[in-house]
């Protein structure tokens, strides 16, 4: 993702792709540029502008920026501010050369509100009338040519999802760039009352110079924008104080004589729309109850809706196990085979150890989880694209409200199941700083996909596949349990923070309910592919680097004296004609002693007193230290730890078996199911993720909140793991 470069000088022609949320901007963007930005059937999925290149016949290569969706130019949420800055070209951005406005043809009147606002600014506009394929099913007819005549800008019917009308659209863009006057009406469409004109004039006089207000039309449009957008609570940092004061004074003066400025401005536009609609819009008699209504009757039902939601979630998580298992097994085998092949071709010693244990085994133990990551993103993608995600928000609103979270917080929290980083960026859809902060601080508690490898490893290793009551699979149940647990903790924390640090009420919820749509498999697949690629690149770079560092920490310093002692004993044993078994035993001891002597081993033992009450030994401690860079590193570090400390076995049986076999000095297994549970609880709560810390710092512009996040999650993780382990012991579950 990139942000828009600030100035216009010397840059390529830029087209801003704008429109209401959920109108198909990103789908069109992908079609036109061939890039695959994320697409979702939930209002407000795009939170940062993505820029792609569009090739036009005569204008050549131009930039296309995918702007976040917005219902109007009166910004309230942080992401709308971004959209408005990009559409209007408020400093530091320059106005775009053209706005390609995507309009949802099935909701024409509401979409025209934004269209009127954008056209008012005087920037050339081309309208793409999207979802043309859906018109018949909603019982609406639109005369595109008449609409173009009324608005004074080109209008092209398209269907972004099916790739229809795109050639005509490219032609229209080319023509509008060559001849901007053809994409601008000759005069203002909406006319104001003389009283309102006075307000506009006085706000216009207070507009700052650098907003490029030479053009009187743009000046009036920005004045209107200011009158509607600015107030005591807005978070529009770029608006100067004088302008805000003028606006506030004007609004107060109007209220004193019984006028409502906002209603006057908004009504003016809707009156234009209502007066002109008969010329281009015909609504046929109501079609019978739509498919969306029929589905909603069940899926939004207070009882059946919840049941359906829980069932869907349960299915998703069980399938993460049963469907992914064969693929995981295949990848494990391939890695074992590859490692054996490479190690055999290298001379025995440090280099072979490094390549085998650090490079192949370390990265391999993370790559193994690719199938589950793919499935998780596939499910999230399908839910977003089909429109079901918006229903989930609807079902959850009561709960969210009771907790003190904004209704819109639900979507970032659901996205948190995939990854906290985009989820934190998605908090920008909320209008108040308070709502955003609260969500940002609890999203990292949601079970993200990086925890999945850890849970998957521990559950598969410690809880044999079996059924509860003969039909409820235990492994799937545990996984669902971990997701539920993290969600409940996140909600509880939000409730506490919302009543202490972030007092105040959240903004009223207004949601748009998109119709159900058949998910576009192409774009879902493209999204899954992008996410998987990110995961693999991470495994290839960050995780590799961490694994190498951990390997170094675990291999050095070498204990020359100790090694010599083992060598001596080995040759003694060999002379005495010891069995292979005895020799292997000795090798094990040697490796364990080396690990204990290494820097990493010492660090692990150093923190052992702190984690012993949780049931973790120093080897797990090493893994925890590694995991503070990124959670997946735990798995690869454990791979390295046991690759060295365990028996050297050519028939690598994978990390799961190693974990089952690992025992304490007294022979008792290190990993009991109780230890596994405590470890999972620790992972569920601790914010072990550098990227999350970094993005919170960026979004809150300072170190205060990321540090707070890190400390409170760490403390919570320790306490809960302690409670689980000691509680379990007390109940005799150890």
């Amino acid at each position, binding site marked *: 993702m990139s942000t828009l470069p600030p100035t216009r000088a010397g840059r390529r022609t830029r087209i801003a792709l704008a429109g209401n949320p959920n109108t198909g901007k990103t789908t069109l963007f992908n079609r036109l540029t061939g890039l695959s930005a994320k697409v979702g059937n939930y209002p407000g999925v795009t939170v940062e502008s993505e820029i792609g290149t569009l090739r036009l016949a005569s204008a050549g290569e131009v930039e296309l920026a995918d702007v976040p969706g917005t219902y109007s130019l009166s910004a309230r949420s942080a992401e709308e501010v971004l959209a408005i800055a990009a559409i209007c070209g408020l400093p530091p951005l320059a106005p775009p050369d053209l706005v390609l406005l995507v309009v949802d043809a099935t909701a024409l*009147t509401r979409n025209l509100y934004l269209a009127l606002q954008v056209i008012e600014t005087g920037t050339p506009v081309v309208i793409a009338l999207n979802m043309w394929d859906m018109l018949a099913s*909603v019982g609406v007819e639109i005369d595109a040519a008449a609409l173009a005549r009324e608005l004074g800008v080109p209008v092209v019917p398209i269907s972004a999802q099916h790739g229809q009308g795109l050639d005509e659209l490219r032609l229209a863009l080319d023509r509008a760039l060559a001849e901007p006057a053809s994409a601008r009406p000759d005069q203002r469409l909406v006319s104001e009352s003389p009283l309102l004109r006075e307000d506009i004039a006085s706000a216009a006089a207070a507009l700052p110079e650098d907003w490029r207000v030479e053009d009187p039309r743009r000046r009036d449009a920005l004045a209107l924008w200011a009158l509607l957008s600015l107030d005591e609570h807005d978070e529009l940092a770029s608006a100067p104080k004088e302008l805000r004061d003028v606006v506030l004074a004007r609004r107060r003066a109007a209220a004193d004589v019984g006028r409502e400025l906002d209603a006057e401005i*908004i009504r003016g536009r809707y009156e234009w729309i209502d007066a002109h609609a008969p010329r281009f819009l015909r609504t046929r008699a109501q079609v019978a109850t739509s498919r969306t209504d029929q589905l909603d009757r069940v899926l939004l039902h*207070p009882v059946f809706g*919840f049941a359906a939601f829980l069932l869907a979630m349960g299915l998703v998580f069980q399938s993460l196990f049963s469907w992914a298992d064969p693929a995981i097994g295949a990848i494990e085998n391939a890695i074992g085979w590859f490692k054996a092949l490479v190690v055999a071709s290298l001379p025995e010693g440090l280099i072979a150890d490094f390549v085998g244990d650090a490079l192949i085994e370390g990265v391999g133990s993370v790559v193994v989880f690719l199938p589950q990551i793919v499935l998780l993103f596939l499910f999230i993608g399908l839910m977003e694209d089909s429109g079901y995600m918006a229903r989930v928000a609807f079902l959850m*609103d*009561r709960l969210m409200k009771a907790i003190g979270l904004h209704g819109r917080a639900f979507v970032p929290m659901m996205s948190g199941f995939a990854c906290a980083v985009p989820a934190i960026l998605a908090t920008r859809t909320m209008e108040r700083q308070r709502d955003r902060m609260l969500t940002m601080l609890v999203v990292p508690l949601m079970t993200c996909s990086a925890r999945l490898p850890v849970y998957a490893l521990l559950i598969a290793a410690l809880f044999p596949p079996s059924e509860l009551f003969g039909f409820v699979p235990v492994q799937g149940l545990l996984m669902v349990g971990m997701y539920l647990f993290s969600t409940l903790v996140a909600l509880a924390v939000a409730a506490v923070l919302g009543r202490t640090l972030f007092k105040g009420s959240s903004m*009223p919820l*207004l949601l*748009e309910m998109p119709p159900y749509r058949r998910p576009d498999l192409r774009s879902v697949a493209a999204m899954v592919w992008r996410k998987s690629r990110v995961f693999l690149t991470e495994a290839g770079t960050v995780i590799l680097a961490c694994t190498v560092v951990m390997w170094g920490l675990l291999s050095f310093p070498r204990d020359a004296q100790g090694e010599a002692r083992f060598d001596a004993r080995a040759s003694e044993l060999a002379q005495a004609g010891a069995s292979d078994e005895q020799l292997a035993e000795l090798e094990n001891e040697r490796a364990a002693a080396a690990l204990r002597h290494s820097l990493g081993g010492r660090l692990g033992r150093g923190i052992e007193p702190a984690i012993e009450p949780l049931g973790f030994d120093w080897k797990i401690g090493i893994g925890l230290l590694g995991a503070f860079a990124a959670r997946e590193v735990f798995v690869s570090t454990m791979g390295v730890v046991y690759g060295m400390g365990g028996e050297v076995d050519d028939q690598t049986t994978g990390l799961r078996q190693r974990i089952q076999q690992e025992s304490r000095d007294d022979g008792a297994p290190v990993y009991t199911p109780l230890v596994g549970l405590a470890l999972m609880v620790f992972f569920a709560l601790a914010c072990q993720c550098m990227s999350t810390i970094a993005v919170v710092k960026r979004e809150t512009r300072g170190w205060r909140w990321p540090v707070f996040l890190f400390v409170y999650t760490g403390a919570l993780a320790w306490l809960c793991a302690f409670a689980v382990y000691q509680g379990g012991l007390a109940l005799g579950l150890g």
Partner: protein
Amino acid sequence: MTSLDLLSPGTRARLVSIGGERAFRCRLMELGLLPGTALRLVRKADLGGVLELEVRGCRLTVRHLEARSLAVVPLEG
């Protein structure tokens, strides 16, 4: 005259006035729900505490709590 949350699902009504905070009022009006606009209550999710409306052919959800500040007159038929 009554408030929106008291309508039964399927009823059509005309909006008379909107109460509440300015930001909320503006947002509703910008979505096309101005005083004088006809609307239809599609669904009431009692358990979810949310109402679904149809305004100018588009669906919109508002909370029960906020629906109380929307004054409406029911329309015949």
